[in-house]
C-alpha cells in the first residue's frame, strides 16, 4: 500500500479525483446559488410571436400559461441535466454548441474597413469577375432558307442606298426579335447557333448593312450598331461590387482565422493518424 502510494500514476489519479470532486461540488454549489429561473417579458413575447406564426392566431391566456410552464420545465430539466454532466458525450448537444459558438465567432469577427489600395489590389487580382462578356447590338433583316443569293445582294443594295426604305418592312418575318441590344455571345449562340454568332462577332460595327450572315434558321442582313469586346469594366464602375466581394472574403477569412485560433488552444491528437 505504501509502495502503491509512491506510484506517480496513483498520485495523478488521486489528484484527478480531488479535482473532479471539487469541480462537482462547485458545479452543484453554483447550481444551487443560481437557482432562479427567470422568464422575461422578452421570452414571452418571443413565444407569443412563434405561436402566432405557426398557428396564425395570438395565444390565449391558457396557451401562454402552458408555454411558460413548458419553458420552466425545459429550463429546470436542462440545468439539472448539465449539473449531472449529461451534456458531455452527446453528439447532438456537442454539434449544437459548436454551431452556436461558430455563429458567435462570426458575430465577433471584426468587420474590416478596406482602403482604396486594398480594393484595387483585389480588383486587379480578380479581373475575371469584373469583365463583361462580349456582346453586340444589332438589327437584322431575315431571309428564309429558300431565298437565293441574288435576293440578298439586291436587298443589301437597297438597305445601303442613299434613300433606303424602312428596314423593318424588308425581308421575311422573323419569329423572334429583329433588333437586339447588348446581346451576349453566349445568348447569341443560343438563339442563332454557333456559326452565326462567330460570324457576327467577327464583323465590325458600321452604319452600313452587312452580310448576309448565315444562321441555322436562314440568312440575315445585319446592321451591327455596336460591338463590345467584353472588356474589363473600369474600377470606378464596379467599385461597390468590388467592395462587397472583398468584404465577403475578408469576413470569411476572419471567421476562419478566429476558429483556427480557438482550435490552436487545444492540442489535437488523432489516433491512428501520423
Amino acid at each position, binding site marked *: 500500500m505504501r509502495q502503491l502510494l509512491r506510484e506517480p500514476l496513483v498520485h495523478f489519479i488521486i489528484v484527478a479525483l480531488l479535482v473532479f470532486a471539487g469541480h462537482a461540488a462547485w458545479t452543484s454549489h453554483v447550481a444551487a446559488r443560481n437557482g432562479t429561473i427567470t422568464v422575461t417579458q422578452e421570452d414571452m413575447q418571443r413565444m407569443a410571436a412563434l405561436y402566432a406564426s405557426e398557428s396564425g392566431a395570438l395565444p390565449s391566456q391558457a396557451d401562454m400559461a402552458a408555454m411558460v410552464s413548458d419553458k420552466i420545465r425545459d429550463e429546470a430539466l436542462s440545468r439539472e441535466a448539465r449539473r449531472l454532466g449529461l451534456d458531455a458525450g452527446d453528439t447532438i448537444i456537442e454539434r449544437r454548441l459548436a454551431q452556436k459558438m461558430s455563429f458567435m465567432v462570426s458575430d465577433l469577427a471584426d468587420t474590416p474597413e478596406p482602403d482604396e489600395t486594398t480594393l484595387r489590389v483585389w480588383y486587379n487580382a480578380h479581373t475575371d469577375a469584373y469583365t463583361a462578356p462580349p456582346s453586340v447590338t444589332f438589327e437584322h433583316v431575315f431571309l428564309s432558307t429558300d431565298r437565293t443569293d441574288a435576293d440578298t445582294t439586291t436587298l443589301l443594295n437597297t438597305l445601303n442606298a442613299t434613300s*433606303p426604305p424602312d428596314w423593318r418592312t424588308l425581308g421575311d418575318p422573323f419569329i423572334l426579335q429583329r433588333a437586339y441590344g447588348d446581346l451576349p455571345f453566349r445568348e447569341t449562340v443560343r438563339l*442563332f447557333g454557333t456559326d452565326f454568332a462567330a460570324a457576327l462577332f467577327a464583323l465590325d460595327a458600321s452604319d452600313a448593312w452587312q452580310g448576309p450572315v448565315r444562321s441555322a434558321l436562314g440568312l440575315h442582313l445585319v446592321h451591327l450598331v455596336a460591338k463590345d469586346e467584353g472588356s474589363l469594366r473600369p474600377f470606378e464602375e464596379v467599385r461597390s461590387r468590388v467592395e462587397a466581394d472583398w468584404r465577403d472574403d475578408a469576413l470569411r477569412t476572419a471567421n476562419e482565422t478566429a476558429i483556427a485560433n480557438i482550435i490552436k488552444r487545444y492540442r489535437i491528437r488523432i489516433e491512428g493518424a501520423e
Partner: protein
Amino acid sequence: MWKTLTLVTTALALVACSGNKSDEAPADIAATPESTAPDGATPGYSAERNAYFGDMHIHTRNSFDAYIFNVRRTADDAYRFAKGETIKHPSGFDMTIAGGPLDFYTVTDHAEYLGILPAMNSKDSPLSELPRSKDMFSTDPAKIQAAFQGVGASVRSGDKIAEMYDEPLINSVWGQNIAAAEKYNEPGVFTTFSAYEFTSVTTEDDEGGFGGGNLHRNVFFRGEAPDRAFSTLDSTNPEDLWDWMDAQRADGRESIAIPHNSNVSDGQMFRLETYNGDPLDAAYADQRNRNEPLVEVTQVKGTSETHPDLSPNDEWANFEIYDELLASNIVSKTNGSYVREAYQNGLKFQEEQGFDPFRFGMTAASDSHVAGGAYAENDFWSKIGIVDGLPFQRGSVPTPGITDWADQPDNQTTQSAKHWFSRWSASGLTGVWAEENTRDAIFDAFRRKETFATTGPRMKVRFFGGFGYTADTLNATDLAKQAYAGGVAMGGDLVGTGEAPNFIAWAIRDANSAPLQRVQVVKVTSGGEAVYDAACSGGTTPDASHRCPDNGASVDIATCTTTDGTGAGELKALWTDPDFVPGQRATYYVRVLENPTCRWSTWEANRNGTPPNPDLPTTIQERAYTSPIWYIPPA
C-alpha cells in the same frame, strides 16, 4: 439594355435625317418601334412576346424519394445548375445543362415529409433516433426498403406516420425552398417560382408502398406563397387541393397546379368522374380549369400526348411510350391517361352537357430528382440518382463485363432497367411566349396557356387562329403583330362567325439541335381526330393524304452522325382545315417534328462499344406540342 438600343436607333434616325444617308429617311422608325416597352419593363421586352424556356419540375435532397437515392443537392444547387453552373450527380460525375442556361426554373420538392429524410439521417436531429431512421439509413437493403416503402405507403394513403411528421420542420424547409426561389429570381434575366409537388397516388390493392396510378401535380405560386403546403397528408383528393388553392387565391395568393405523368395514372388523370366516382358537372369543370390551366405532356417518365391504341392512324403516336405504374410493373390503363383523348372527351362533355373539364394547355419538364434536368440525347443521366445514374443501370449498355445482350443476367438491376429506366426519356422543356422574363409575364402566359412543350430541344413555335389571315399576312415582316391583332394565339378560344377559320403555324429549329422535318396540325373533335402535315421542309407541299414527302434526312446508328436532307431552319404555313364542318367544335394544336436523331440509349451504346439494346428504339424524332386553339362555332 433595350432602352439603349431604342436610343441608338433614335440616334441613327437623327443621323440619317441630318443627311448622312438620306434627306428623306423614314421619320417613323423611332416613332413606331417594333415594341413599345412600358415604364419599368425589363431589357428585351417585346410586345409581340419572346420565347422563354424553362423546367418547372425539379427535385432536390428535400424530396423523400431523392434523398433515399443519395441526392444531396439543394435548391440553391438546382438554380445554379439552371443558370449554367456545373453540379455533381450522386453517382459522382458532373452535370452541366445542355443548350445553355434556362430562362426559368422551379424546384418542386414533394410536400409530403419535405426535408424529413435529411433530418432522419442527421445526428443533429432527434428524428435520427427513430427506429425507422435507423432502418432507413442502415446497410441492410431489406430494412431500408421496408422503411422507405412505409413512407411511400403513407404518402399514398395520406395516413401520417406520426413520429416522422414534424410539421414545424416541414414548414421550415418549405420556407427554405421559398427563400431559395426568392434569392435566384432576377427580373429580366431568370425567373423562379415558389412551388411544390402534391403527390397523390391511386391505390392498387395488390401493390405495396408507393405503387399506384399517378395523380401528381405541381403547385406554383405567382408571388407570395403560404407558410405551409397542402399535401396528401392533408388529403389525397386533388379536388381538396383545388379548394385549398381557391381559398389561398381569395387571400391574394394566386397559384396554378400542373398535373403530370397522366400516362401512368391508370386512367385516373382524365377520368370521366370525380375522384370519389361522382358524375362531373359544370362546377367541377370551372374549378379544375381555374386551378389547372396546363398539363405537363412530356418528361423523363414518358410522353402523354397519345398512345398508338388511341391514335392508330397517327404514324408518330408511338413515341416514348411509358406505361408502368409508379414503382410497379402493372400496366396503366390507356383510356383516361392521354392528353389528346382528354381533349376529345372535353368536347363530348361540352356538346352533351355544356361544360369542358379538360380545356388545358401543354407544358413539359424533366422531373429530375438530382436537381438538374437531362434534356439532351447525347448527355443523359436519367432521373433518380444512384439507381439509374450509370448506363448499365438504365439498360442502354449490358451489365459490366458482358458485351452480348443475349448474355444479360436477370437481376434486380436489369429488371428495373427493362421495366422502367430504359424506357425513360431525355425530356423536356416548357416554352412560353411572354413579353419579358419576369414572374408576372411568365405566369400570365401560363394563365393564357400561351405555352408549348418540347421533348428537350429548344425549337420555337407560334400558332395563331383567325378568320382573315392571308398569304400576305404570312409574309408580312410584322407577321406576329398582325397575327395577334387578327386572331388568337395558342391557348385561346377562337369564337366562330360561321366561316372557316385559318391558322398560322410557324416554327424555327433549335440552332443547336437537328433541323425541322415538318409542322403538323392535330385536329380533335368529339367524334375523332386527324393529323395534317401543314408545312414540309425543302419547300415541298403535303400530298392528298396530307403527308410531306421524305426529306432525305438520315441517321447513321453506328456513329449517330446525321445528314440533314432538306431539313429546315424555319417552317411556316397558312393552314385551313380541309375537313372543316361549320357548327362543329374542334380543338387544334400544332406538333413540330425534327429530323430523326439517335436516342440517348444509342449514344450510350456507341460510347460503350456495344450494340444498342435490341428492345429499344435506336432513333427518336424530337418534337414540340403547342397548347391548342379551341374553335367554338357561333351559337
